[in-house]
């Protein structure tokens, strides 16, 4: 911890008064931590949360039927966007069983960027459902892995079953510029959606 405390970038700039968060959502190994690392101004951090969940197993050995505790890790990063505002990016795992953590993460979030992999498109459905259930708007970014098939946009839209208004972009999660563009597509969409709502 000593070295972290010595870092100039450890603390949020003094003038900052507001903080917002955007979720980076996606299934296992889709590049969530990579994109958080590419965008964050601080070394990405990890916090753990203990989840008490409704158990699916009936023969819970702990003797407390229907409840189990798991630990889930969240990786996150920070971007100072102005003198007044910081943005936090949280990697959100695509599993239904982390419901409580999802509620905590989704509460007050501006929206989510769903990372998808063309080799495993169907694995993105769960995370999209989790977002839709919570009414959290999202854009989809195809993390274009080396050697993964490249499909035309209309085929991807159909495979992902996206609404016409939902942005679909390609990005390289390792590349800060490409990843920033994906976030910009999301925020433009959030502003547009808000306009439509209030119209």
């Amino acid at each position, binding site marked *: 911890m000593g070295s972290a405390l010595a870092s100039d970038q450890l603390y949020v700039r003094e003038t900052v008064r507001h903080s917002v968060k955007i979720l980076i959502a996606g299934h296992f190994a889709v590049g969530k931590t990579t994109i958080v690392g590419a965008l964050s101004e601080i070394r990405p951090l*990890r916090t753990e949360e203990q989840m008490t969940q409704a158990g699916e197993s009936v023969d819970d050995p702990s003797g407390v039927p229907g409840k189990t505790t798991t630990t889930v890790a969240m990786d996150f990063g920070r971007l100072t966007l102005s003198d007044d505002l910081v943005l*936090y990016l949280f990697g959100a795992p695509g599993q239904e069983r982390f419901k409580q953590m999802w509620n905590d993460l989704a509460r007050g979030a501006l929206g989510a960027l769903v990372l998808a992999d063309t080799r495993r498109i169907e694995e993105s459905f769960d995370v999209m459902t989790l977002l839709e259930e919570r009414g959290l708007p999202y854009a989809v970014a195809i993390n274009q892995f080396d050697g993964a098939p490249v499909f035309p946009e209309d085929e991807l839209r159909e495979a992902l079953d996206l609404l016409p208004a939902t942005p679909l972009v390609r990005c390289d999660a390792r590349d800060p510029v490409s990843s920033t563009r994906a976030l910009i597509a999301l*925020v433009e969409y959030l502003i547009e959606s808000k306009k439509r709502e209030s119209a």
Partner: protein
Amino acid sequence: MSPPRPERALVRPHVVTGGRAHPTRNIFDLVTLVIASRSQVGGLSPEKRRVMELCQGGALSVAEVAAHLALPASVTKVLLSDLVDSGHIVTRASAAEAGQATDDMLREVLDGLRARL
């Protein structure tokens, strides 16, 4: 690309919080910014002293405090909540508590992201 795992706290979470699982107030989002508002730490538990030591230096989000101290976010919220009650910590509101993000805030996010390109 995964960051190194932080050192584990040596004390079990429920010991740290005095057996409580929930904070006395529900004002904390993961991105709520917290900062120390006084320097005296007399009478505080070791874990709260650690929080204060970290928060003396400037503002951090609840999630950052948790990560730097290798504590679960829920435990961190309990500690911070007590420290707000005792006047040691003050918060700066996050968008989550203010309800929906305003148009102005979204615009500020957009401008900030574009400026990074």
